[in-house]
């Protein structure tokens, strides 16, 4: 009888952020984690990434906010959140008690707002890292998303980086012509990692009523439908930049996570899949570990970027 294969080492390092395994949940799809207590073994997650937090509370968009599409969904939540103060007093205590890393996703309308959020979260017990959502409209530049302009994206990244000692991940928007150019500029600001991708802008129309299927008309597309775009983004960016890349988009099972990692992701985030199956992120981690064992790899890091082109 052959000896049982060694369990692969699942620990990963994303810049200065150390995780016990490479499978996180994606921002906005897991609330503040307390919604899943009792349903999911939260401690089995590599990290919890919170819903986006802004300085002030946001009420979000009109109904409907969800429209299912082919193998995915459009959402127009409108970044509804209780604001920084309520996050710290009402949501963070529960997160602090978890035996997993906590990454707080932040968003603002100006670089100063991002910096203020970063400074305020620095030193808060329970916060292990920040994830900067730059898909928001840049109020000063006339509402164009920070994430679609290399200069503005880098300005936000640098502002956050300077305002906090916490590890900083920047989550990039795929709604751009030259993702590598933006990723390179952001990486050069000294952030710890890049997360890609956020949702793709999309629209669906009810042909009987002639009205958009979202109250806000336009929303963000996620789910299996976007996986090939996400894998391509991870592949291109991870080859072009020196900072670690976290893959996100369309992951529903361990093989999707393995695909992102082969493309170049050091870690992954599971988003919309949790809507179908709250246990999906934990099952992805377990399946990935088994897969690595079958490949005879000693560490999940050995899978990263192994696609042969």
């Amino acid at each position, binding site marked *: 009888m052959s000896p049982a294969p060694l369990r692969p080492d699942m620990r990963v390092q994303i810049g200065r952020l150390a995780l016990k395994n490479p499978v996180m949940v994606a921002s*906005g*799809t*897991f*609330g*503040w984690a*307390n*919604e*899943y*207590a*009792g*349903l999911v073994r939260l401690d089995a997650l590599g990290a919890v990434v919170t*819903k986006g937090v802004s300085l002030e509370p946001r*009420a*979000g968009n*009109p*109904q*409907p*906010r*969800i*429209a*299912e599409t*082919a*193998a*995915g*969904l459009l*959402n127009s*939540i409108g970044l*509804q959140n209780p604001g920084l103060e309520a996050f710290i007093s009402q949501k963070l205590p529960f997160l602090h008690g978890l035996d997993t890393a906590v990454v707080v996703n932040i968003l603002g309308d100006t670089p100063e707002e991002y910096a203020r959020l970063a400074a305020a979260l620095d030193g808060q017990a329970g916060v292990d890292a920040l994830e900067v959502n730059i898909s928001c409209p840049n109020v000063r530049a006339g509402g164009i998303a920070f994430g679609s302009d290399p200069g503005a994206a880098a300005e936000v990244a640098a502002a956050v980086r300077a305002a906090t000692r916490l590890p900083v991940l920047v989550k990039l928007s795929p709604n751009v012509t030259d993702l590598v150019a933006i990723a390179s500029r952001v990486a050069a600001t000294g952030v710890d990692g890049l997360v890609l991708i956020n949702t793709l802008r999309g629209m669906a129309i009810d042909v009987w009523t002639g009205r958009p299927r979202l109250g806000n008309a336009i929303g963000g597309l996620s*789910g*299996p439908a976007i996986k090939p775009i996400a894998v391509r983004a991870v592949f291109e960016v991870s080859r072009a930049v020196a900072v670690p890349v976290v893959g996100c988009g369309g992951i*529903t099972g361990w093989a999707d996570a393995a695909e992102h990692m082969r493309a170049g992701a050091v870690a992954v985030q599971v988003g*919309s899949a*949790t*809507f*179908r*199956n*709250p*246990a999906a992120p934990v099952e992805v981690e377990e399946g990935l570990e088994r897969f690595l064992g079958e490949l005879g790899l000693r560490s999940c890091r050995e899978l990263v970027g192994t696609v042969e082109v």
Partner: protein
Amino acid sequence: MSGSIQVHAELVQVEPRARQRIVCLRLFAPQVARAARPGQFVMLAPGPDGQLDPFLNRPFSIHRVPDADTLELLVAVVGRGTEGLAALPPGVRLRLLGPIGRGFDPPARGPLLLLGGGLGVAPLFFLAESLAGRPVRLLYGAATAEALVSTAGLPCRVELATDDGSAGRRGLATELLAEALSALPVAERALAYLAACGPEPMLARAAALCREAGVRAELSLEAHMACGTGACMGCARPIGGRPQRVCSEGPVFDAREVYP
């Protein structure tokens, strides 16, 4: 923290329930059935595990709990998810999350009115059965007789209304409600209670009638949902002056909060 659990429920039977396309899904799900309260709902996968399209789970009210191990859902076939569900063979195991949300909270005594419009009648069966022995009247409206689900065997008085008069009263269920409310002795109105589920115009009218009559009303709302756990904010809308999630803070809300 939610009180819901996720199970693989076995589809025991799919049975037609009206001359129109309405089916009753009977599912073996003991843990969920035992915890269920009237007005709560479940999120049901539209197909077996591994099938990625349709992607999202579907919300359905708990229609009946015929025994401690079984859930019944009353499903109108209206789109690709419900088409698929209605065509599944018995024996299939489907992911099911439940029971979800805040159900109805009827008072311990006093006259009870239940108002159902169309498929909104689904959760009112469970509620009526849980109130057996009490003075309950179910006011049930649908477009036509073809769309009505049989109420035979329900332990309450039933009054019907159809838009075309093909069964019961010709007109709206809210007309039945207006009459039932005005027939209540004034002294009983403070004790009386209405539970309503159905299209929003019906709920708005019911809320207005109950407000005038001084009768407490609870409404079960719908919204497009992704998670069903309170995490995604997809179902949130302004209720009682703040955004509330239909899935975890509802689906049943006080009428005065919904229509202030």
